């Protein structure tokens, strides 16, 4: 039955391709024009702009972008050579990928565990209150989160240093101590995202067929066995999808997390907190020639495109419905 309907729509689709454009088609095209213009200006023009990674791009005063591109000389791969030779490339690549992996694994593990526990609470009302409170950090911008962190880590006034002084220890320059930053970043990431992810998993737990649990109870399964043999297998697909889709974005870092919390992602903690995005942003704000920075940006775009396509191909293998392409 379902297949029959599909075939029918397929037929009407192929018919639609061959026929002449009707009045309705032109109306629809007209309606799509504003959004399409937006897409051209803010998505497709920047794709064309990637060309400057291969140019010795110079800005001439008073001239527009197109003029500058045409009149800049081709640089071949010189910008990339510069990027590869600098020591920073290794650091920013390592940080971007490793942090993302940690975030993905710890983030989903914690969210799944909490969602399962939340679902077992006796009182629905309480569970709603907890969810609302834990959802809160998701709505804070990283600028505000940086203030929260500063209240604890500030050298002069921060709570942690106060307490250390109270017990007679010397205060620590947290914002210059590169060893603690991996922990701070992971904790802050979990702080902001766990509530939100938990709610998502919770909504898929509530979609599990209750009769499965009833049957399990009759068979004498305890809570742990129910979780192990019903809840987790039911969540498996969602977890794998989220995992793979996040891996697809592994070359992107959450800019605010790394930049705002560390108050600039440079100086003595550069090695612990710099990612591709903070590196590019800082280079953009400095006097570095834009061509060289754009090489890093170009690399990120291409690498990301590849990982998204690969991740999606894997998703398609596992569950065709969940793929984005």
């Amino acid at each position, binding site marked *: 039955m379902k297949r029959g309907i599909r075939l029918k729509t397929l037929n009407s689709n192929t018919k639609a391709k061959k026929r002449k454009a009707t009045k309705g088609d032109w109306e629809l095209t007209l309606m*799509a024009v504003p*959004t399409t213009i937006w897409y051209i200006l803010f998505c497709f023009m920047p*794709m064309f702009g990637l060309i400057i990674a291969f140019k010795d791009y110079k800005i001439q005063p008073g001239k527009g972008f197109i003029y500058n591109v045409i009149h800049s000389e081709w640089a071949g791969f010189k910008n990339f050579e510069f990027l590869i030779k600098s020591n920073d490339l290794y650091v920013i690549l390592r940080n971007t990928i490793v942090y993302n992996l940690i975030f993905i694994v710890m983030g989903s593990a914690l969210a799944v565990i909490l969602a399962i526990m939340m679902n077992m609470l006796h009182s629905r009302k309480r569970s709603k209150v907890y969810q609302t*409170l*834990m959802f809160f950090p998701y709505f804070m911008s990283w600028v505000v989160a940086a*203030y929260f962190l500063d209240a*604890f880590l500030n050298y002069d006034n921060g709570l942690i240093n106060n307490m250390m002084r109270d017990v007679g220890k010397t205060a620590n320059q947290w914002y210059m101590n590169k060893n603690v930053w991996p922990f701070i970043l992971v904790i802050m990431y979990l702080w902001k995202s766990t509530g939100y992810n938990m709610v998502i998993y919770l909504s898929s737990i509530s979609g599990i067929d209750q009769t499965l649990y009833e049957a399990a*109870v*009759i068979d004498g399964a305890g809570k742990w066995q129910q979780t192990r043999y019903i809840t987790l297998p039911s969540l498996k697909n969602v977890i794998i999808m989220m995992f793979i889709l996040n891996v697809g974005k592994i070359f992107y870092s959450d800019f605010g997390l790394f930049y705002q919390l560390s108050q600039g992602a440079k100086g003595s903690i550069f090695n612990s907190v710099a990612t591709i995005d903070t590196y590019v942003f800082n280079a953009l704000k400095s006097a570095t020639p834009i061509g060289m920075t754009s090489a890093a*940006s170009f690399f990120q775009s291409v690498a990301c495109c590849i990982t998204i396509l690969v991740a999606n191909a894997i998703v398609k293998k596992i569950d065709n419905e969940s793929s984005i392409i």
Partner: protein
Amino acid sequence: MRKRAVKDMDMADSSTLNRISPAINISFNVLFILFALICIIPVVFVFIISISSEQSIKLNGYRFWPQEFSLESYLFLWKEGKMIIRALGVSAAVTVAGTAMGVILTTLMGYVLSIRKFKFNSFFTMVVFIPMIFNGGMISSYVINTQFLHLKNTLWALILPLCVSSFHVIICKTFFKLNIPESIVESAQIDGASHFTIFARIAFPLSKPIVATIALFLSFAYWNDWFQSSLYITDTKLFSIQSLLDHIQRNMEMMAKNPSLGVTLQQYMNNMPKEGARMAMAIIIIVPIACTYPFFQRYFISGLTVGAVKG
């Protein structure tokens, strides 16, 4: 174990039976109370700092229980209010304008893509789809926006780049496909309605839930945005409240513009409640969000689950 479970079945129905023991329930509750506290304690702490007197901060640093409470930070912000009110105005204007534009552009495109018989459907689908897998990145967007579109130091730089997202367009398309049957569109066409009329009179009014969801996504994104501002805005008059907060993290002095009579600017700066006022600014940003999000929470969740359905 099994025997007991079967015996209990006679007395209680399975839903009350299949519960964790009270002891575990309590320990889970304790754990969740702990997590919930971790999530909101920073705000409480920042609020306490904002109502601590500057003197006690200087003496003891930030404390959960300061020696002396005071409203001087808020009074200072009130006196120096011009800049904050301006920044709040910029944020509000950008949020309202951006959300309105975004909703219109998104629903229009969503409607167009939802019509299966549309001749150029596959072309416009590609327009929406390609940016999801490939984009120009920060540098080339920056170069285009500043040198080609000349958006630097205009409010458009804060509004335009965030206003459409392919994710939203696809959610919208899916919603129209599932909720507006083609037969309705066709019968309206037979009655002589154009697609504009169908969109404005039928599709848009029927899509309130999805419009609400997208509007919320957008308005929180605009209200919380500081990144566009840090790239494109150098004129302090165009600072949004978030970027003002971002700047005073490094330089509180920019807030001090109104020395009272008989005081030099230097003295005035030395006396201003720097620490408290910083935190008070953060609280001013948080309050509108904290007051509204519990009511909108479910739209966020429903939006994400709608997005998961492929249309």
